[in-house]
């Protein structure tokens, strides 16, 4: 929601003015209401008790008179004529008696005391049968005074009948209740309360307005009346004749009647209504004043703001020259106007400087645009030449891959061929060797020394040939056998190999140092071959050393473990290193050290097939060191190695 100054002024004025009035008004009304209700309830209860006391006092007199008369008649032997005179005198003297009757034992009226204005009716009442009147029966039965609401036989108005036993008969008097209304009226009218008496049946029997009594209204269903009938002093709201009242009801002691003292709520709450009217009038006046003041205030404020807005529009149109300071009585607006003017001056100056810089920038931008175009051209040229180079590189790569694949195929075929040839050549060679040995053994004596020498050379050549073929076959097998990688503990393999070499070590002094050999992922059979060949070489080439020293160990690296076998044997000339891992390549003469020249080729092949690499370092006469890398096995596999098995026995560790 958007607000303009006028609304803000109005809202501000209304809020500032109304909120305190409303708050104070509501609190005041609540406080006054509480006070008025409490005051009203206190007054009505007080008045009710007072009127109840007056009614009791009022009734005491006729009852006393009635009792006096009864006792008087009881103790004095009056003649019927005297009785009649006495009753008439009494009825005439005391206005509250409607009529007084003397009844005989059968309930028949024997004497009637009427007011002198009604004396002519006396004949009607004499001889009447009142045997059905309940209080007369009760009075005679209990021997004491009884009373009950009744109706005047003369007027039909409500009365209160008293009856007391007298001799074998009774005395009955009708008491006018209209005087009760007068008492109530005198007590309550000055205090703006209405009071009335209700008998236990719920009928109004005394009211300041006699017509209300005559109407014989029944209030038996009023909760106020019912509660009071139980002996409780009740103050509550009630509705009567479509009018709301608040009043107090109490049981008049000894009578069983309920006295209700009430006031119209409209009247009782008049102070609150006055306060409400004052509050509403105050609110309306405040709203009016707030609107007028809001109008004036907003007009006074809007004029300089309008002018300031106009200045801002001129600034937008870059019309700086016509900007002038706005005169105002308000210091803040004057400062705002001066500041705006200064700001406009500053903007004007900056605009000029900005224009100049913009021109320079535009020239620079033009130059940059040209350089960019040139650069883009050169980049395009370079990109084109790079794309061509990339294409030729890709073609070369493809060619290389094709050749590599062809080479691998040829290698595999060659290995297969070598296996086939060595396997197939072995049998005829063995036959040739066997037959030459047989010839030498059986026909040697028949042959001359040269023949025997030749035969021996055949046997020896065949043996050498078979050894070569065996080596070749072994090499082929290694090359062709699949690699089944598991977790392998090299320490166990070293121990096994060294045990196998025990025969060659006899009579020699050898110092074997085996370091920590971590587990690795490898084919256990092939790896065992690696250790057998390397350790075999170490044992072989240290045979001339006085004390042979063979050291086996490993170094952990990021890409796996590097194992090494180091000896202090014959070593070799590093000049022949390129041939070192070739098949049938030897760096020493067979006479010096026996061998076929296949062992290291096998080792290199196995290491390569495990994804590792092998290299060596040596010096002639000082020994050699062979190192190869293998992918590392899991660390915890070391425990399995200590148990004596080269392969991890736990299937879960196998790869």
């Amino acid at each position, binding site marked *: 929601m958007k607000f303009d100054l006028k609304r803000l002024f109005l809202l501000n004025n209304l809020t500032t003015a109304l909120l305190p009035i409303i708050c104070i008004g509501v609190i005041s009304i609540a406080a006054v209401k509480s006070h008025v209700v409490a005051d009203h309830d206190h007054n009505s209860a007080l008045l009710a008790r007072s009127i109840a006391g007056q009614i009791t006092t009022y009734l005491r007199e006729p009852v006393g008179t009635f009792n006096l008369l009864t006792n008087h008649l009881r103790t004095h032997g009056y003649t019927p004529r005297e009785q009649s005179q006495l009753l008439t005198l009494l009825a005439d003297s005391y206005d509250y008696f409607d009529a007084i009757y003397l009844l005989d034992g059968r309930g028949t009226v024997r004497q009637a005391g009427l007011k002198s204005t009604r004396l002519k009716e006396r004949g009607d009442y004499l001889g009447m049968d009142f045997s059905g009147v309940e209080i007369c029966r009760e009075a005679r039965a209990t021997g004491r005074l009884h009373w009950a609401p009744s109706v005047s036989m003369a007027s039909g108005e409500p009365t209160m009948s008293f009856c007391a036993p007298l001799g074998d008969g009774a005395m009955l008097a009708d008491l006018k209740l209209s005087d009760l209304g007068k008492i109530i009226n005198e007590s309550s009218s000055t205090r703006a309360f209405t009071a009335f008496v209700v008998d236990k049946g719920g009928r109004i029997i005394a009211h300041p307005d006699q017509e209300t009594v005559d109407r014989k209204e029944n209030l038996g269903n009023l909760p106020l009346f019912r509660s009071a009938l139980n002996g409780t002093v009740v103050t509550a709201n009630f509705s009567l004749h479509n009018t709301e009242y608040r009043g107090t009801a109490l049981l008049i002691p000894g009578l069983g009647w309920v006295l209700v003292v009430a006031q119209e709520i409209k009247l009782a709450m008049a102070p609150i209504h006055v306060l409400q009217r004052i509050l*509403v009038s105050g609110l309306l006046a405040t709203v009016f004043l707030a609107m007028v003041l809001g109008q004036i205030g907003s007009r006074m404020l809007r004029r300089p703001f309008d002018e300031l807005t106009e200045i801002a529009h001129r600034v937008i149109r870059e019309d700086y020259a016509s900007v002038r300071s706005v005169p105002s009585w308000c210091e803040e607006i004057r400062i705002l106007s001066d500041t705006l003017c200064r700001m406009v001056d500053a903007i004007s100056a900056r605009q000029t400087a900005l224009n100049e810089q913009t021109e320079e920038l535009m020239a620079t931008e033009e130059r940059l645009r040209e350089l960019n175009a040139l650069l883009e051209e050169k980049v395009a040229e370079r990109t084109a030449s790079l794309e061509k180079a990339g294409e030729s590189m890709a073609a070369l790569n493809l060619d290389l891959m094709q050749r590599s694949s062809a080479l691998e195929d040829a290698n595999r075929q060659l290995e297969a061929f070598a296996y086939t040839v060595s396997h197939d050549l072995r049998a005829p060679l063995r036959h040739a060797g066997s037959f030459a040995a047989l010839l030498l053994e059986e026909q040697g004596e028949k042959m001359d020394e040269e023949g025997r020498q030749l035969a021996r050379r055949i046997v020896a050549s065949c043996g050498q040939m078979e050894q070569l073929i065996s080596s070749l076959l072994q090499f082929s097998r290694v090359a062709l056998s699949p690699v089944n990688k598991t977790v392998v503990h090299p320490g166990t393999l070293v121990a096994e190999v060294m045990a196998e070499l025990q025969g060659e070590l006899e009579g020699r002094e050898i110092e074997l140092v085996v370091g920590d050999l971590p587990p690795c992922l490898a084919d256990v059979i092939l790896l065992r071959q690696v250790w057998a060949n390397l350790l075999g070489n170490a044992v072989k080439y240290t045979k001339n050393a006085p004390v042979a020293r063979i050291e086996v160990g490993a170094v952990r690296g990021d890409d796996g473990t590097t194992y090494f076998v180091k000896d202090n044997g014959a070593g070799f000339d590093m000049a022949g290193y390129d041939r070192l891992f070739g098949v049938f390549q030897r760096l020493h003469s067979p006479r010096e050290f026996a061998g076929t020249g296949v062992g290291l080729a096998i080792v290199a092949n196995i290491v390569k097939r495990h994804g590792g690499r092998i290299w060596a370092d040596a010096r002639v006469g000082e020994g050699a060191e062979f190192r190869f890398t293998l992918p590392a096995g899991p660390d915890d596999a070391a425990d399995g190695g200590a148990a004596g098995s080269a392969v991890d026995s736990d299937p879960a560790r196998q790869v």
Partner: protein
Amino acid sequence: MAPRSALLLLFTLFLAFLGSCSCDLDKAIKIGFVGSITGKNSDLGVAERDAVQLAVENVNSSGGINGRMLSLIVRDDAFTPERAAEAVESLAREKVAAIIGPTGSSMAKVALPVAARNNIVLVSPTSSTNELSGKDDHFFRVMEPNQLFARHLAETCIKLKIRRVAAIYDLQNRTYTVEIFQEFRDEFTRRGGTIAGVQSFDSTTAPVFMPLVEKLGLAKADGVMVLASSVDSINIGQQIRKIDPRIPIISGACGIAQRDLVQQAGKSINNIIFTLPVNSRCAKPSYTTFHDAFAKRFNYQPTFAAVLAYDAAQAVMAGLRKNPDPQRFRETMKGIRSFPGLQGEVELDPFGDPHRNLYILRYAEGREEVIE
């Protein structure tokens, strides 16, 4: 927008101001009651007013008529025709939808022109004058006209072998009393009976009854007809019993409402005979429920007048349920041919007069008994 906001605020404050006033925005349907609540016939008027009040309370406690509450405005005619006319005029100013009343025939006769002028329907519980029978007017009632009562009384006398009847009546309600007596006399003599003696009096002049009763010539009569208010009927009854303790008293007062009056009647009430349009021994649930509720609410037994007034209220409510438009209420009432009364369905003829059964009631040894 600012003026609009201010107007809205002012309007809100105005509403608050209105709310602070105790303005009467009640939408209740007003119905009036006119009856003799005070005076010697107040037993009828009070019982009728109480019954109508109970009917209104009952209908309001069950949700009103078509969702609208009823508001009862009571006026007293003090058993005087002038006051009855004033009461109707006053209720017309209150814009009541209909008036239940008046109690007495003389009052009804005077009140009717006033009601007609103001286009207000009168539904009387106990007005029985013949003068208002068979007319297309604003007057409806739930009690049979006098003619029927008088004939019924005459027939009853013949049945009870009362051949000579002395009569005494009040001139104050002559529309009822004189009319009943004349109708009775005609029918009774037609059936072979004779009138032994006639006395009249004006109840407003504090009459002395003993000389009147003495002049009736009870020695030559088999029964006495008394046509007066309840109080006067009891007073006259007492005088009659002084002369003749057993002679049957044929009463037109239609019963005695106030128990304290019955007490004052003493033994004189024995052998008083009434003809009533209500069976006080009725066992219909609607009547017994009403009887108990009335006694509980007002602390006295409902009289025949209370029953008729309750029925009159039911007739008005039946009309209001049909069409609450006060301008057309007369036509609406004319359209009601029957409505549920306390002692059965009450049928109305096109002139608003009912057809009900009549019952003969006799007080014997202080108790009521229905003898027919």
